[in-house]
């Protein structure tokens, strides 16, 4: 009896269930690593980075384009991380948003959200243009990725961007998220990050929920809910604006 063959047969046959277990284990390990950095780098950022490393390993060993899912044993991860579950889960995060809280944020929140999305988007588009991705769909996808690592792939999928461009957009978002976590404590004095209002502005401008939460926690844990409040809306508004108005704007500008 070949036990290994039986196990791999069961795992492949039940790929989605296997991926739940696998991602659970990865999450557990990465959050333990995060705890070792005393929460300075949020567990989600390490987990996502680990995912990108696994994708690299999967791609390099098989020559396939679907990351770790290129290996038949891990094909189920492709379903868990595929467009349907991803968008479904993203929509569900809106559930945490309270209309009364949205109203509390007021104009400052709206202004910082729009400026945050626009500035990140423009930076991403311009850098994509000058660094080898001058087509509109790639520019917009990478610009959206600089918003957050969720807005990028959602926009890319909506516009039909290629997988490598989507991967760059995720990577850009992860870099931003990690940078926010690490840099926030160092620049807090320069930007006056010491009151609820500036924390709300901070959350709206940065948008990355994990980066905002971890960054503010390192500055002053009392500020976390204020930043998280505005950051909650960033991804949703980004997903709304990037593949629509902003895409059309870039398309018009680029001719």
């Amino acid at each position, binding site marked *: 009896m070949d036990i290994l063959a039986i196990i791999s047969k069961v795992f492949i046959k039940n790929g989605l269930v296997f991926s739940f277990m696998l991602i659970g284990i*990865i999450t557990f390990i990465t959050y333990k690593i995060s705890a070792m950095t005393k929460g300075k780098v949020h567990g*989600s950022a390490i*987990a*996502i980075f*680990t*995912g*990108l490393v*696994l*994708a690299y390993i*999967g791609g390099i060993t098989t020559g396939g384009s679907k*990351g*770790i899912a290129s290996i038949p044993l891990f094909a189920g991860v*492709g379903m*868990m*991380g595929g467009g349907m579950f991803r*968008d*479904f*889960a*993203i*929509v*569900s995060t*809106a*559930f945490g948003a309270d209309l009364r809280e949205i109203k509390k944020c007021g*104009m400052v929140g709206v202004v910082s959200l729009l*400026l945050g999305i626009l*500035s*990140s988007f423009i*930076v991403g588009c311009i850098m*994509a243009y000058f660094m080898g991705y001058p087509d509109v769909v790639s520019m917009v996808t*990478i610009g959206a*990725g600089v918003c957050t*690592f969720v807005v990028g*792939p959602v926009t890319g999928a*909506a*516009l*039909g961007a*290629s997988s490598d*461009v989507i*991967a*760059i957009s*995720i*990577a*850009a*978002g*992860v*870099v*931003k998220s990690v940078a926010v976590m690490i840099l926030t404590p160092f620049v807090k004095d320069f*930007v006056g*990050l010491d009151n609820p*209002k*500036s924390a709300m*502005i901070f959350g709206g*401008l*940065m948008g990355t929920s994990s980066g905002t939460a971890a960054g503010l926690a390192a500055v002053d844990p009392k500020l976390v809910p204020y930043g998280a409040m505005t950051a909650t809306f960033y991804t949703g508004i980004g997903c*709304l*604006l990037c*593949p*629509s108005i902003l*895409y059309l704007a870039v*398309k018009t500008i680029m001719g």
Partner: protein
Amino acid sequence: MAIYGVALLAACYLVGLVIGDMLGVVVGVKANVGGVGFAMLFLILLSNHGIDHGWLDKKAQSGIAFWSAMYIPIVVAMSSIQNVVAALKGGPLAIGAGLVGVTVAFAFIPIIAKFSGDKKEEVA
């Protein structure tokens, strides 16, 4: 029952995507225009209405909350199926764009704070 929440979420998701697709046809792009954003908007409005008016009970909410909690793990799975090998040639772009984006955003904090005029503590 938890399935009621999941069903509400699914309904918002599907209606949002249908609208996004229709909008894509209207504006003439082969794309889903903002469907996920619309779906989120519907879910915010309906779940707030449901909680306030009592038709979305704790059990039903737990059906939505589960998927919300699965969001980061699904993003991890999503990262692990990307074409990272191909993306590595764009590595400097990802790092550069991410860092410049953060720098610009940081620079905006004092500017917006100044214009919103909330500096009472400094006067005192």
